[in-house]
């Protein structure tokens, strides 16, 4: 299984990429997937607390399962308006 992972704003600039197709194993939820990303991109940990997450364009909690999800987005706290 692979999921499409998307990063935005400071997260994308920090990681140096915006979209990637990733095999999430062994992560089974969104929080564990973020931890995987931080392992391979240590700069992401400098941003402080964990970002927000959305699965298939809907806000989710960190324990949201990845099973059946096509796209996981990691999002800084929003600042539109």
């Amino acid at each position, binding site marked *: 299984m692979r999921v499409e992972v*998307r990063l*935005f*704003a*400071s997260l994308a*600039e*920090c990681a140096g990429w915006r979209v990637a197709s990733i095999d999430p194993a062994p992560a089974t939820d969104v929080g564990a997937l973020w931890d995987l990303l931080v392992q391979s991109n240590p*700069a992401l940990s*400098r*941003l*402080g607390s964990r970002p927000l997450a*959305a699965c298939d*364009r*809907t*806000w989710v909690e960190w324990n949201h399962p990845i099973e059946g999800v096509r796209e996981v*987005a990691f*999002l*800084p*706290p*929003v*600042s*539109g*308006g």
Partner: protein
Amino acid sequence: MVRLQTVPIDVARLWNELRADSDGAIAQFLGVVRDSNRGRRVLHLDYEAFTEMAEAEMSRIERETHGRFAISEVALAHRVGRIEIGEVSVAIVVAAPHRAPALEACRFAIEELKRRVPIWKKEVFSDGEIWIEGAGERRVERNPSAAETDPDQA
């Protein structure tokens, strides 16, 4: 009516499109790009959106606003990309038969938009750029090696 657009928001046109002869009240909120933030002079802003989700979230807010208030129409428009000082970044326009629901729906829609819609602004100064992230304004310098949390905003 939901719009995420790179061209300037034409506010008068928005409310002419919304309004019907049975509406007696139009409430409107505009966010405008300011020339400074915490004493630092801003040259312009750059807005980035998670486009597909932002449009979906704005549509959900539109539906919720209709569900909560006795209004005829609500428009949510947000601009993305580079925006100059004095330009409108966001517009909420509500048309309703009466004023109380118009005013309350307008406030609800802008508060929800600011809380939930995945859009981020970057302030551009003469000597750098800063992402504004969240109400608490955790600021992240562009250069990863300079990334830090603004102690005033923690």
